[in-house]
């Protein structure tokens, strides 16, 4: 555009002077990479503003809708997964950048007079970054967000005297619910951005007033070299900004942001905060009972107080390192403590097999929730959607009710008393039962005994028997390979088992064996006359859990065939393997009943 246009514009708004003031800021001692952390933090804040705005266009802060809307962002919105991933990881990056910025300031002694106000506004900004992280973590209303934030607000509740009131105010009521979400949302997208925006303006204005603090060991000579802010320092900052943003986009594209299953107040999810809160989390483990408040409030409070007091206790004009060794050492020790506590928390979780197991279940539930959500979430919400999903409900019940005796996929009781149900109903499982019924992994430790092993049969015949048993479940689909009744009597199966609707023999009736109906009968009452009237030590579940619950468990059992891991029965095809002799049970009570 012509010069005349710019001249006219400048006459009216005076942009040239503003620009000159912004860009020609002198930097004594020259531009430096040491100064980039503040602007990198600011760039990350802008990234959060942009990505947050996009997320807010799709997000719904209500207990019934929040999870579903986030799942919608993940699945349906173009680049939604990327934008959410960037927002998530930029939050962590902001904490890192703010800490680096703070360390640089401490190292250079830049908090010293007359820059106390810069230091204090910076500390306040760091606190607000953490507040952003905390409020944002809850918003997806998934298991991690729900439980980790619940711990955080409970911590607020441990503050002496005002704790209870504070907790009610924070969570917007007596318990977690829609009001907690609307409150956190309002804080996260309105209050905190306004406050942070204002504080950033003050922080930057103060920085401009006092200028950069050069390296403490610069001499009068080297300080004579003065760069202008633009272009060298700006170019450095743009380069760092580009690297940081590029890194975030790559990370977000590669791993996205986690979305656990919808928040379920009835579950026992392992609450873990984001990694930058792990040190505080670890601290909680060391203080018990009445001392708890030391870990939750007093120690973190003292650290904050110390940091705020730093410019007032490290008072000398001298910014060189050696005379300030005590203060630098204290800050360094604090940082080391944070790192050690974080590592301890990570190491503890990594070495705990129970946590690994819970994470596996959590991952499966998260995947299941996303699958269900693809068909739309009912108005009652995602938590309800999961609660009425037979598979999810069935698995939870199975873990509670059945895994005290049964092993499943390598998990379960240390001393199993009932058959391993890994791959239950699959051909591999049936083959295993035919070959090795008395194995301690199958019926060897139960009251059920007397079935012969078919391990000696030629593979083709055994395979045919497996196909037959596998095919029994369907009332409509004929069993492959034509009529099979003769084979069953030839191999003495029908000596003990019934294959039509009558019963009265020694073994359980196998009419429609492993069908939904058969499994349901087994769950309802395994001691029924046509199942194991004399050889049963499994609980009779129709006396213990509701019909819906039993139906859910059956759905879960039906799903095991498809998800049985391929190595579940490693010796299933080992022709040399001899059947296990029936182990002697300590209380082998049952005489042969006829």
């Amino acid at each position: 555009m012509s010069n005349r246009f710019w001249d006219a514009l400048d006459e009216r708004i005076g942009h040239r002077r503003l620009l000159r003031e912004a860009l020609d800021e002198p930097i004594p001692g020259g531009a430096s990479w040491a100064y980039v952390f503040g602007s990198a933090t600011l760039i990350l804040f802008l990234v959060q503003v942009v990505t947050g705005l996009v997320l807010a266009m799709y997000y719904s802060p209500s207990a019934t809708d929040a999870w579903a809307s986030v799942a919608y962002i993940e699945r349906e919105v173009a680049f939604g997964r990327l934008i959410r991933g960037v927002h998530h990881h930029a939050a962590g990056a902001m904490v890192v950048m703010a800490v680096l910025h703070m360390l640089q300031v401490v190292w250079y002694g830049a908090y010293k007079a007359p820059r106390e106000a810069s230091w204090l506004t910076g500390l306040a900004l760091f606190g607000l970054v953490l507040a952003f992280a905390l409020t944002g973590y809850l918003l997806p209303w998934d298991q991690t967000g729900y439980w980790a934030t619940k711990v955080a607000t409970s911590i607020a509740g441990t503050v002496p005297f005002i704790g209870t009131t504070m907790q009610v105010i924070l969570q917007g009521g007596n318990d977690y619910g829609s009001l907690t979400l609307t409150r956190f949302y309002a804080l996260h997208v309105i209050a905190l951005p306004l406050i942070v925006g204002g504080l950033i303006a003050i922080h930057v204005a103060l920085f401009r007033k006092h200028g950069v603090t050069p390296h403490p060991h610069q001499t009068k000579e080297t300080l004579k070299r003065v760069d202008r802010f633009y272009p060298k320092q700006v170019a450095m900052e743009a380069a760092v900004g580009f690297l940081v943003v590029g890194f975030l986009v790559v990370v977000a594209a590669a791993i996205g942001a986690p979305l656990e299953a919808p928040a379920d107040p009835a579950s026992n999810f392992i609450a873990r905060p984001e990694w930058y809160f792990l040190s505080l989390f670890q601290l909680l483990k060391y203080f018990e009972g009445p001392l708890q408040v030391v870990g939750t409030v007093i120690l973190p409070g003292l650290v904050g107080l110390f940091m705020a007091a730093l410019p007032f206790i490290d008072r000398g004009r001298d910014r060189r390192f050696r005379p300030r060794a005590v203060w630098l050492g204290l800050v360094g020790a604090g940082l080391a403590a944070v790192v050690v506590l974080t590592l301890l928390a990570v190491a503890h979780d990594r070495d705990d097999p129970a946590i690994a197991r819970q994470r596996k279940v959590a991952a499966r539930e998260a995947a299941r929730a996303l699958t269900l959500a693809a068909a739309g979430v009912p108005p009652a919400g995602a938590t309800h959607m999961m609660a009425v999903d037979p598979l999810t409900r069935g698995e939870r019940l199975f873990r509670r009710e059945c895994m005290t005796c049964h092993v499943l996929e390598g998990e379960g009781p240390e001393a199993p008393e009932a058959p391993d149900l890994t791959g239950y109903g699959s051909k591999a499982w049936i083959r295993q039962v035919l070959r090795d019924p008395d194995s301690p992994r199958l019926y060897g430790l139960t009251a059920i005994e007397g079935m012969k092993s078919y391990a000696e049969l030629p593979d083709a015949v055994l395979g045919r028997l497996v196909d037959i048993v596998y095919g029994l479940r369907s009332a409509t689909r004929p069993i492959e390979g034509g009529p099979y009744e003769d084979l069953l009597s030839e191999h003495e199966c029908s000596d003990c088992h019934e294959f039509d609707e009558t019963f009265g023999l020694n073994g359980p009736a196998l009419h429609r064996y492993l069908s939904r109906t058969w499994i349901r009968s087994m769950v309802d009452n395994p001691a029924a006359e046509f199942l194991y009237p004399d050889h049963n030590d499994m609980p009779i579940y129709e006396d213990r859990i509701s019909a819906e619950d039993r139906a859910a468990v059956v759905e879960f059992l039906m799903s095991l065939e498809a998800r049985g891991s391929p190595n579940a029965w490693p010796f299933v095809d080992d022709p040399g393997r001899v059947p296990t002799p029936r182990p002697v049970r300590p209380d082998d009570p049952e005489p042969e009943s006829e």
Partner: protein
Amino acid sequence: MTAMAEDRRALLKVLTGVFGGGAAAAIGLPALRAVTSPWGKVTVSGTGEFVSVGPLASVPEDGTPINVPVVIEAPRDAWTRLPATTVGAVFLRRLGGEVLAYSTVCPHLGCGIDYQSDKRAFACPCHESSFDLDGRVLAGPSPRAMDALETRVVDGRIEVKFEKFRLGTATKVNA
């Protein structure tokens, strides 16, 4: 300033533009695409399909229009799958063996049209467009006649293809 320093400054300016622009684009472009994500998608379901609106016998044989709700089984609204929900209404009229259906959405600016039995005419309460029983404009700002909808009768029940059209245009175009 030396020529070399001048070159250096120029290079730094270019680098600033490249890095700054690159960072802005890396976030800005996906963000823009995400904002426009609903374009061309059915975010709220319930239009474009034949919906059963009631038995043929419920419509008066003398040609008097009746207003019936359009209820859709399990419509989607973004992430929600709703139970059977009323998504709109239509006017039904019988002319001989034929069933006519009109959208209740005024083609002017989308207000809900009302049937006034005393005048035997349709009227929009917002900007006072009025239409005769065949949907033709009698008066007012509506640029076109009331939008007729496709109908069919299946096993004695009327089905209407429930659709929405662009507002404010003289021709009827699907929205």
